[in-house]
């Protein structure tokens, strides 16, 4: 028996918010809840292969000091161990001019549009971070 699917629109480039999204997505996905994540806007930068470091505030510093789980690895674990799909926003890919090969591996589905994502999300709960 599956719970109501969870849909997350992730737009923030802040480390703390990306971390929280990764925690929510991975823990829900391994708790028998289907999860889909739509990554767009400034959040896209954190998912580039050549990202230098997460940009954030005070809590970001603490998490780096204490070696909290890596945000992107949380999404990858959720995908590997649970029912998690992560889509890069097709608009963001078009505007940035980035190729899919420039994004981190073992994570993304092919780019999706907002229309498709919102349509899927009609059958679940949608949160925006």
């Amino acid at each position, binding site marked *: 028996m599956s719970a109501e699917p969870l849909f997350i629109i992730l737009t923030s480039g802040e480390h703390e918010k990306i971390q929280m999204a990764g925690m929510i997505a991975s823990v829900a996905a391994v708790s028998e809840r289907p999860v889909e994540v739509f990554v767009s806007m400034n959040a896209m930068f954190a998912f580039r292969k050549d990202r230098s470091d997460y940009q954030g505030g005070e809590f970001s510093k603490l998490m780096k000091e204490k070696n909290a789980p890596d945000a992107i690895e949380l999404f990858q674990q959720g995908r590997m*161990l649970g029912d998690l799909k992560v889509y890069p926003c097709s608009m963001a890919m078009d505007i940035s001019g980035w190729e899919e090969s420039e994004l981190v591996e073992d994570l993304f589905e092919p780019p999706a549009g907002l229309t498709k994502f919102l349509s899927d999300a009609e059958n679940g709960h949608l949160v925006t971070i």
Partner: protein
Amino acid sequence: MSETTTVDARGAYCPGPLMELIATLKLVEVGDEIEVLSSDKGSANDIPEWVAKVKHELVGINEKDDHWSIVVKKLK
């Protein structure tokens, strides 16, 4: 014959120990037990919640000097 696998997740923060437990659960047989060692208090609270939610069995949870030992039996 059931076996016990130990996952040493001491030093990892939530949800690291939970993820390590789940990754190991995928590898063992039904009936086997996994002992997770965690120094993270949040995980000591959260792992039993997860076990109940997805219907495995919490065999025991013990607080040691500087960490918790959480034993989970794979039921499915």
